[in-house]
């Protein structure tokens, strides 16, 4: 009994210690980046010698940071269009997959999800070769097509998950009461799966904004994307403006998350 208590004490200590280390390693970088973005210093020294908005002013300067602004708007546009188109296609595909229970549906499901695990860097190079063999010049539309393929599975997956939780009796009841199938879709299915679609769109948008492997090959100087631009800034001089970009992106993601929560919470209440 004594020995088992001792071993239990070491268990608690080791689990506690490792969990503490895990929390530290998760939180510290985010705090350090935010703190660094307010530095007065020319370098990335931490802790910053004094606090100021110097680097945010620098970042929002329309002349000196023009390439960053262009890249940021390109990223937002590509993410927006790819998410909207990807969501429509994915929701349709998810509806098809849940209604057909043949083994081939499982195969189709797996192939629709495959971009999630296949290395997108391999895909990025493949897409570059594909478009150049076809003789299509780089443009934002190519980036949209490339991003679409990599981010559609996020919406497909969450929509499929919501659809499998949907009670088929609801649709049967609506059909028995004489509602058309489209009416049933619009008034029953869609409101119930809306939170799933919204969550998927959120993930898809974020992952398009962050995408490196596809943009790396499909973007050029004219169609710069934000993550690639930041990579360039990191490779050359360690520009403190990167920390300011990080600050802006963290705030934007946080706001988007709150809006998302409100929206899906709202839809839940509306469908209840």
């Amino acid at each position, binding site marked *: 009994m004594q020995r088992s208590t001792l071993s239990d004490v070491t268990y608690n200590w080791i689990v506690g210690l*490792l969990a503490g280390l895990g929390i530290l390693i998760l939180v510290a970088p985010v705090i350090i980046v935010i703190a660094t973005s307010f530095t007065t210093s020319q370098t990335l020294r931490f802790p910053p010698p004094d606090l100021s908005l110097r680097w945010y002013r620098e970042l929002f300067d329309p002349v000196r940071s023009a390439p960053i602004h262009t890249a940021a708007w390109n990223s937002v546009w590509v993410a927006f269009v790819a998410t909207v188109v990807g969501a429509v296609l994915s929701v349709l595909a998810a509806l098809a997959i849940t209604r057909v229970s043949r083994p081939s549906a499982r195969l189709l499901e797996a192939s629709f999800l495959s971009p999630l695990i296949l290395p997108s860097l391999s895909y990025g190079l493949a897409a570059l070769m594909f478009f150049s063999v076809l003789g299509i010049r780089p443009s934002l539309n190519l980036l949209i097509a490339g991003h*679409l393929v990599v981010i559609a599975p996020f919406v497909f997956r969450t929509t499929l998950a919501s659809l499998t939780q949907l009670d088929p009796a609801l649709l049967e009841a609506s059909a028995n009461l004489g509602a058309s199938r489209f009416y049933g879709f619009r008034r029953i299915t869609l409101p119930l799966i809306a939170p799933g679609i919204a969550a998927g769109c959120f993930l898809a948008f974020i992952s398009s904004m962050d995408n490196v492997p596809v943009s790396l090959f499909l973007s050029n100087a004219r169609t710069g994307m934000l993550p690639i631009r930041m990579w360039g800034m990191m490779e050359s001089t360690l520009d403190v403006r990167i920390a300011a970009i990080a600050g802006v992106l963290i705030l934007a993601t946080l706001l988007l998350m709150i809006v998302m929560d409100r929206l899906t919470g709202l839809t839940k209440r509306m469908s209840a």
Partner: protein
Amino acid sequence: MAGAAIAAAGGSAPGDRVEWRLAAPLGLTYLVFFAAPFAILLGISFYADAEQTRLGLDSWTKFYGDAFYLKVIFDTLKLGLFAVAATTLLAYPLALVFRASGPKLQRLLIFIILMPLLTSVVIRTFAWIVILAREGVVNQTLMGLGLTAAPLNLLQTELGLVIALTQIEMPLMLLPLLTIMNQMDQNLVDASRALGASKWRTFFKVVLPLTLPGWIAGATLVFASATTAFISQSVIGGARLVYLPALIWQQSTVVYNWPFAAVASLTLLFTVLAGIMALGWLGRFAKTN
């Protein structure tokens, strides 16, 4: 369009053919923009020279006949495994603490766990440069404590890269693990403890097998992501540490040897798929035992 297709299906019995049509737009998009590019990639790998004039297996034999490139494959696999091991070591204790805490602490923990997701991979990489640099936090702390006289070189080392990747990839491991940890039946844990098993024994004999599917899901994502994390690898690892993504990038956009880049790219694909299949096999093996 959705409306038209579904309305067309209305009235008649739910015919499979009509339902299949809904999957067609995404299926066609994938066929054109996903399957076709990979077919082209495979095709280009069978050119023997960089100018793509001659067909042949030269690019393949050059890649797999050179010890340098074989070491790049090995290093990439090793990096993926290290990242899986390190995230596992920290994610399991965190998940256990999460399971044991009350609702208030759980909310705080969820916020902490999701925090890295607020920052993109590029920003997380940037954060680790600030931390690991010569005048960074780690070196200043070590020197302040008098543990080292000169700043350590943590950037451009494999250790530094694994530490950074641990944080960068951690959410991918934690999310599936937390989900399955919360679904686990507490009665099984209580029974093991009541029958006199120590906490260690309970963990290895009850908790670990029950949460293995979640771990496999997480490990798959971490492995796939760490082996292909081009920016983290090149910025933190530097030019001295070469992994498959950097090789693909260099061969395709600097050297302009597309057939060779295609071989490297397909090798990355096979490496990741082999890793994923090995993890899936491990899961089935553990289930049958």
